[in-house]
């Protein structure tokens, strides 16, 4: 355990590299590492045909990038929310922030609204929806998640319900094609996305991660309460806004492409917290990022392999793992309660 603790990030990185390789290899079509190597680096090759090359470079590769970054981003936003709200159950799903983004995405699908390109429209709408949920959460529960846990969770339930109502109305007024699209979105999937989406997401995830990285030492102090942080000279208000905006932006841009993928933001920080017990949030940032990537890359791989040639939506898969985990956390919380 001690060895794992001191080399946790390296271990996660190795598992992630393996996952990425497997994710490119396996799917409806299987490829050997040699074929992948040829497809990626050689102009012409006898081992792979042009269509196979297309599958590898334009389907598998961007998909893997998206699953990695989405998992990492969701995990990171979960870590930050748990620290800022001082509540170990905080996560983009439970707080209703993902649901807000989902409702906005549904609106774009049904209304046909367009601001510039379709990708940009989805991004902006999802961020707006996620921000609306965040503002509502701050208004209803404040940042005192630790002192008023039930209020925090109730606010999350209310926001989820409101967002579901909006999505429901949109589904009701949608046409058949739109309906299928929304349903598919609500189950979460990394399929059908190309380099355009992968690069947009890379930009957002890297920028938000950098912003969080720069303020993470202050988040450590904030974890002990607003007054405590003020005493240490931390600008509490501006810090809270910066890190929560970055987290919301992460969630918004991920939901815009992959739809609802729940529980990564809850599970990854807890796995990391279980190994790096007693560590401050700043020490968990890199491992949580990697752990989120690992979880979603493998979940996405699994979603392709369970029932080929069709795919299980990855959001459904993460819910199957995350739901029981959430129950376990509640059960453990009951034992801890004093």
């Amino acid at each position, binding site marked *: 355990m001690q060895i794992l603790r001191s080399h946790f990030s390296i271990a996660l990185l190795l598992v992630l590299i393996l996952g990425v390789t497997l994710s490119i290899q396996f799917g409806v079509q299987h490829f050997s590492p040699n074929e992948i190597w040829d497809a990626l680096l050689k102009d012409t090759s006898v081992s792979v045909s042009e269509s196979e090359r297309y599958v590898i470079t334009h389907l598998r590769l961007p998909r893997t990038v998206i699953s990695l970054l989405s998992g990492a981003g969701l995990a990171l936003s979960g870590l930050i929310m748990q620290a800022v709200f*001082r509540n*170990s159950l905080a996560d983009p799903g439970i707080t209703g922030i993902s649901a807000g983004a989902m409702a906005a995405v549904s609106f774009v699908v049904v209304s046909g609204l367009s601001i510039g390109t379709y990708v940009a429209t989805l991004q902006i709408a999802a961020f707006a929806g996620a921000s609306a949920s965040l503002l509502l959460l701050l208004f209803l529960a404040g940042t005192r998640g*630790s*002192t008023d846990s039930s209020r925090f969770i109730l606010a999350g339930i209310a926001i989820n319900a409101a967002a579901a109502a909006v999505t429901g109305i949109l589904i009701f007024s949608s046409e058949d094609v739109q309906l299928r699209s929304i349903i598919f979105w609500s189950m979460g999937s990394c399929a059908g996305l190309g380099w355009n989406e992968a690069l947009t997401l890379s930009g957002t995830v890297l920028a938000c991660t950098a912003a969080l990285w720069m303020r993470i030492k202050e988040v*450590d*102090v904030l*974890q*002990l*309460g607003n*007054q*405590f942080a*003020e*005493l*240490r*000279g*931390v*600008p509490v208000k501006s810090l809270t806004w910066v890190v929560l905006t970055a987290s919301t932006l992460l969630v918004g841009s991920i939901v815009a492409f992959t739809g609802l993928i729940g529980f990564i933001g809850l599970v990854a920080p807890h796995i990391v*917290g279980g190994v790096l*017990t*007693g*560590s*401050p949030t700043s020490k968990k940032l890199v491992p949580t990022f990697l752990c989120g990537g690992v979880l979603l890359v493998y979940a996405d791989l699994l979603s392709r392999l369970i029932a080929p040639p069709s795919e299980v939506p990855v959001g459904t898969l993460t819910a199957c793992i995350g739901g029981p985990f959430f129950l376990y956390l509640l059960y453990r919380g009951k034992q*801890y309660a004093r």
Partner: protein
Amino acid sequence: MHVRCNSIEYAIGSSTILTGVSAEFSNSGVHMLLGPNGSGKSTLLGIIAGLNSDYSGNVKYSQMDIRSMSAQKTALHRTMCLQNLAAPKGVSGETFFHLVVGATLSQVQEQRAFELFDPMTALAVDGLLKKDCGIMSGGEFQRLYVAAAMSRVLWLQSMTARSEHLFLLDEPISNLDPPHQVRLLHVLKQFTRIAKCTTIAVVHDINLALKWSDKTTLLSKGSIVSAGNTGEVLSPEILSRAFGATFKPAAKDSAYLECDPLCELLNMSLQSIEV
């Protein structure tokens, strides 16, 4: 450091918390802030710390108005132990120390900040560093918090090569058993002398204040009843006036003061119950 409060007025909505509070604190030993519940002790301490700026009047740290100081700058001049800080679950004592001090224990030791005084040993909290704060007892966590805060004072002093510092404690002994209360106050007095900081602590126990504080400020209903040397301020007459209850020596020639159980306040409430 010399700290001066000039005619502080503070109200929340229509209820007045502090009226015309002027006080001075210097680095001549431990200052204690006493008074009945709701007399504004913690509020005054928070205002002195700069946690609250919604008051009229001003607070000066050796001539500098704290309203004109940035949060970062104020944090370098004063350290405060909050009342009832929630022990963070899943955070080790070591990490908590780091968060309070802003440096790790080994960094503090390397800087030779503990050369003259080691608060961790003095308060016997060395053994708590590996323990999760969430499973510490209230008293253990409180001792660790105070020891870490003392370490921060020493750390900042050694980093800035400046001895001036304001050290504030809001009810530091409230969660401790009697031996630990005495030990903490003893350590606090020693620490204040060695670190040469200005120490202000809010406490409730009059007899502990009589024994361990050098200067006392007595508050009642948001204003200062008396301030000065502890022995003079905490006289039975002044205490009786501040608390609206009768204080008297426990026995003839005893320095120990006790409160008459049939004091005015209780009498009044007893009567109203009978009615």
